[in-house]
């Protein structure tokens, strides 16, 4: 699975766990609009760290936070350890 699909499937799994309803996901969708609440996002980032072995929020030089799902995938892609 590529990073994009891993992130999307993890979002779906956190939403299911948290009993939250997701809208159909698309890259230009605002993170705030996808259906996960702030705790859901925090869990998503923790789960992705367990799965991928890195957390771009903790290491990124870029001080801009991602705002759309596409941003989020790029944010993770940019942080993949070389």
């Amino acid at each position: 699975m590529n990073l994009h699909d891993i992130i999307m499937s993890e979002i779906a799994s956190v939403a299911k766990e948290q009993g939250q309803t997701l809208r159909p996901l698309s890259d230009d969708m605002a993170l705030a609009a996808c259906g996960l609440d702030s705790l859901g996002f925090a869990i998503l980032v923790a789960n992705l760290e367990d799965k991928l072995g890195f957390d771009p929020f903790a290491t990124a030089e870029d001080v801009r936070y991602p705002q759309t799902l596409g941003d989020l995938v790029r944010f993770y892609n940019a942080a993949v350890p070389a």
Partner: protein
Amino acid sequence: MSESAAAPIPRMSLRQHVAGSARGAQLFTAGAQLDLAQMAKSSRLAGAEVGPHATVLLRTRDQHDFALALLELDGRAGRLIICPPDLTAAQAAAVMIHHGVTHVFDDATMEGLTPARGVTCLALRTAPQPAIVTAPDCDTQWFMFTSGTSGPPKLVAHSFAGLTGAIAPLGATDEVVWGTFYDVRRYGGLQMLLRALTGGGSMVLSHTGEPVAAFIGRLRHAGVTHLAGTPSHWRQALMCPDLTTLKPRYLRLSGEIVDQAVLDALRAAFPGVMIGHAFASTEAGVAFEVNDGLAGFPANWLDVPGKVEMRVRNGTLHLRSARTASAYAGGGSALHDDEGFVDTGDLVVQRGDRVYFAGRASGIINVGGAKVAPEEVEAVINGVAQVHQSRVHPRRNPLTGSLVAAEVVAEAGCDEAELRTQILRVCRATLPAHKVPVSLTFVTSLPMSAGGKLERRHA
């Protein structure tokens, strides 16, 4: 003035402060916009007389009703007990019994709560009556809840002067519109509300469960100039594209450990805007504000005499200040040591010439501003069949500061995958979402201290 010979109260009532609000100053809530000066001149409180001997339990669902109730009761009731939004009916009932509550103000029609005989219910009328703006009859004591490590939450007493003195007055005379992501029924939020109401400006209140994007829209509409929240609130807001449409002059963070990443992200989103972070705790009152854009605080602030004195003892920050809470309700263990210092319970470490916060000595986990006692989660996990022992600790998270993690010692020979599923199922069924462990590790044993207690670890 009262007819008795008692000395006058050396402060203004909240109603007097609000009556002096700037022309056009408003209180903005999700459904309404109220002119503060007008609000001070009318009363909506129905029910019996409330006097200096009254102890009023304030249990409100709506933050706007809460603000109105404060306006009605400050300077009239001897004691106000402020319930946070997540206080259960059972906890509220226990407080009523243990703290001699005489009146209850409840905008949720007393859901789940049956007051003892002799307790008077107060409510808001729909139609306001004219009110006279008067000086206080008494210096109302404000009681707020603090999260204990286990058992029922404790009540801590504050004075009006202590609560309002916590946030420095603003030098600027321009119109000020405060906005807060905090719930005003909690310590940090209440300080913001009182700062706004006594400072003459407007205030925008968030609504429980209101989406961040919607709140940002209301902040923009109200023209917010001063905006406050926890680091978690800010991280969430930074993910909303609309955040940068706001034109604030001052941003404030408190209530959780502030890291450099969130300060840098805010500086990038709001170039040139003053960004401060404040240290505060319910028990110790606000200690200080840091405005140099760096996490932590300068080490040379320690051990210096002044309005607020700070020192480190046994790895935790101790404070001495006139603003510290005066006492726990009903006596309880004294808050101050012999020299007048209060242990904040916050672990600190010094690196170079800077002091950084490192978590709570009690092990209390702060998940985006919501406190989790590890013992509470451990009790649930330990109740699952085949669990021998567990230890709950914080796991660092870049969005909420911390999340809950657990280590479990299982009975020999059990199926770990199956047990993991079962533990999470039980936790999700019995605990609120932020208390459910996000990671669960099986270990063969957990370390004990010499006293036979589970050794706590920090993030």
